[in-house]
């Protein structure tokens, strides 16, 4: 039995750890349970914790186009400024930590080493690790997952998906928004519903893209020595842009 905490409305969860496995489970509940109970847990009034309001400022300026094309952003004048959101921060120096939270919660995790596993359905997800694999079940919103060395797996992302691993395999089973994935040494496997652009950069690994719905991509493949095999009818439903040094590309349809 771990320690239990109330989660204020609109609050998100942040887990920080130097080493050890992190498991966050989103389930039918209203509070948050942290195990083991001796982890430092603190409710902070704003995202940054020490500079109240900066996230508000940054978010207003940084609201991007939901379609997700990098560098093209749309800021609506009638959108109200976003309020600073409370953050329940769980800190652990070493050892495994397990957090149970309500379904749909926005979660961010920062870790140095150790596996990060997000089980269940979340809102938005942001994970960074130095070494250690990342696994995300389902995010209804955006996913940003990045690691220096380690593999990344995202089962389902309802929004924009950004995944980056310097050395490790990247696998996104389904993304409904735009997707940007990159690896230096490691392959990329990605399933897209074809509703947002897909941009992949690999140095030497292979890319496999599966179009999950009846959509026809406009494929652009640029490589110094890699080959492309496209078994999917091309069209103009969405852009699929893949660049590699020596990696190959395979595109298949539903």
């Amino acid at each position: 039995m771990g320690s239990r905490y109330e989660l204020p409305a609109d609050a998100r969860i942040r887990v920080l750890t130097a080493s050890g496995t992190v498991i966050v489970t989103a389930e039918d509940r209203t509070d948050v349970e942290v195990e083991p109970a001796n982890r430092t847990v603190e409710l902070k009034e704003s995202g940054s914790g020490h500079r109240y309001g900066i996230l508000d400022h940054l978010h207003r300026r940084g609201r991007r186009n939901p379609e997700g094309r990098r560098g093209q952003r749309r800021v609506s004048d009638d959108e109200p400024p976003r309020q600073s959101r409370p953050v329940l921060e769980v800190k652990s120096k070493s050892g495994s930590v397990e957090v149970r939270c309500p379904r749909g919660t926005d979660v961010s995790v920062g870790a140095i080493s150790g596996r990060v596993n997000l089980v269940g359905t979340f809102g938005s997800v942001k994970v960074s690790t130095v070494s250690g694999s990342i696994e995300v079940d389902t995010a209804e919103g955006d996913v940003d997952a990045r690691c220096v060395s380690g593999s990344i797996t995202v089962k389902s992302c309802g929004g924009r998906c950004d995944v980056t691993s310097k050395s490790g395999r990247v696998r996104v089973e389904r993304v409904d928004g735009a997707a940007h994935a990159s690896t230096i040494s490691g392959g990329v496997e990605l399933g897209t519903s074809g509703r947002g652009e897909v941009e992949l950069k690999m140095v030497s690994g292979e890319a496999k893209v599966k179009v999950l719905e009846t959509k026809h991509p406009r494929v652009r493949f640029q490589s110094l020595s890699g080959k492309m095999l496209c078994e999917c009818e091309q069209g103009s439903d969405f852009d699929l842009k893949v660049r590699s040094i020596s990696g190959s590309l395979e595109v298949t349809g539903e």
Partner: protein
Amino acid sequence: MSTTRTAAPANAVQGAIVFTDIAGFTEFTAVRGDEAALELLAIQERLIRLEMGEHGHIVKELGDGLMLWFEDACQAVSCSLAFQEEFERRSSAEDMPLWVRIGIHYGRSLKRGNDVIGHDVNVAARIVDLAAPGEVLVSEATAARVTEDGTDIGFEEIGPAMMKGIPEPVQIYRAVRA
């Protein structure tokens, strides 16, 4: 981010430290050869010098990357975005994959000859490790110093990052053109 400090030594400087790193440089060299690799490095440096002008300077070369220093955080971010736009243009037009990752942190460092060292330099070096090719990642300390008026710079929150040898988490943002 700052460590515990007393009075600033005479060789202390406050500014933005920028690290660049070409992704896939080793593989590019293997496929295209040493001469092409040298040319790629020369293109990177030439484009950076051109865009940077007098706003910053190259501290040193680091294999396939560079360490830059800017007095002004806003100029550091703005120039870095301009670097990426130019790298992207060149990469798309030619067989020169200038896939550059950029990390920026604003803080204090100590001059040591032409070099600068310190905790904040180390933080900047860790940030670039998390960047994807084509991205400009900045610390919260950097983003907070980018003034709102007169710039077309925006930020997307990436989240907290724990880094080897850095005791406190660093909030990371992706810099983009607003």
